[in-house]
């Protein structure tokens, strides 16, 4: 247990009526302790059912747990309490996109843009989704009102998974390559987790805003524009690059492959992604 989690746990035990559950559950979620995060969030929500923050928190936890129907309900509750909540609007848009309902995703993103016109990532995603809709991509999933969500309306539609062949020419094909937009939505590629299941959407969500954060860091430190981020884990090598200003590409390989070669793979995949993005308008 880290010091911050320990301190928050102590604080919540001392003051069970406090809002410390928000920070504690979020800290647990970020550390991947999802079951513990869920329990804390559930306790907080029971105490503060009228608090939009608590519903928003619960939605993030449930989304990370893969309970997309539950996440949808929680974000919808947050919006009923606070219709201007951009995080919930983007969360619902993300779920609609995953369900293949691009029109509903677009509608929620446009509402988020009206609320927060200074977030540059939102209009970029709106433009891309609009282009896809104009190009005639079918919005195949049935659209139900956000006020009356149901699991089938947001069940992932594998036929709408974007760009299954985006990296078909690369070594290893789609596996281990992920193209993500500025809002953390997967545009293409696949990423397998430790259990072999695809974790692409979960990882993509973590990469929302990464490009801006990296650009800010290099600029403030006088290092110019950022080119790549190399991440060494005992379990794998990750390289992140920026095919375009509003996308991020992740290449992941076994640690037996030297980082330099993962970097070369990422560069080739970035070129393929740029070519593909140009064809998408």
């Amino acid at each position, binding site marked *: 247990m880290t010091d911050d989690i320990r301190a928050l746990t102590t604080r919540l035990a001392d003051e069970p009526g406090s809002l410390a559950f928000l920070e504690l559950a979020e800290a647990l979620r970020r550390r991947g302790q999802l079951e513990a995060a869920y329990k804390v969030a559930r306790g907080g929500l029971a105490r503060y059912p009228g608090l939009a923050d608590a519903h928003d928190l619960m939605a993030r936890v449930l989304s990370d747990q893969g309970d997309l129907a539950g996440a949808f309900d929680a974000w919808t509750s947050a919006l009923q309490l606070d219709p201007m909540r951009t995080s919930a609007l983007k969360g619902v848009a993300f779920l609609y996109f995953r369900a293949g309902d691009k029109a509903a995703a677009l509608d929620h993103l446009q509402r988020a843009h009206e609320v927060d016109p200074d977030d540059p990532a939102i209009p970029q995603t709106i433009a891309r989704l609009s282009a896809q809709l104009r190009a005639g991509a079918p919005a195949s999933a049935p659209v139900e009102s956000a006020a009356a969500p149901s699991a089938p309306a947001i069940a992932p539609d594998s036929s709408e998974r974007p760009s299954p062949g985006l990296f078909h020419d690369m070594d290893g094909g789609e596996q281990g390559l992920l193209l993500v937009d500025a809002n953390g939505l997967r545009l293409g590629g696949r990423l397998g987790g430790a259990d072999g299941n695809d974790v692409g959407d979960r990882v993509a969500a973590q990469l929302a805003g990464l490009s801006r954060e990296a650009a800010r860091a290099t600029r403030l*430190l006088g290092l110019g524009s950022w080119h790549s981020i190399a991440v060494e*884990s005992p379990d794998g090598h990750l390289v992140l690059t920026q095919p375009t200003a509003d996308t991020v590409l992740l290449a992941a390989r076994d640690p037996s492959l030297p980082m330099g070669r993962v970097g070369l793979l990422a560069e080739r995949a970035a070129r393929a992604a740029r070519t593909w993005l140009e064809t998408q308008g």
Partner: protein
Amino acid sequence: MTATQAVLDRVTRVPGVRGAVVVAAADGLVVAEQLMDGVDGQAAAALTASLVGRLVRTAEGAGMRPPAFVQLRGDGGSVLAAPGPQDLVLVAVVGPDANLGLARLEMIEAVGRLA
């Protein structure tokens, strides 16, 4: 010289390293620093802590253990980060001609001494 200062001293001896900072990962605050003029230690600390936190979550999302080393490469150099014990992160800002391989080895070796 404290253990932390010894760690910073060791890293900043690598050619091309402009400075090094020990950062508290939880809040991005500087624990200790050894920097050349013109390097903003607080910015390096806050921004790198935030970025490393995100990359830890990304690795965890991919089913991997937390990173042992991170390199953010820019036009004019790199930011290197080695997460260590007690939620500390050893950060170095290096120029474009730095010996990255040596800096990486020194940081991975040194960060374990922050305990």
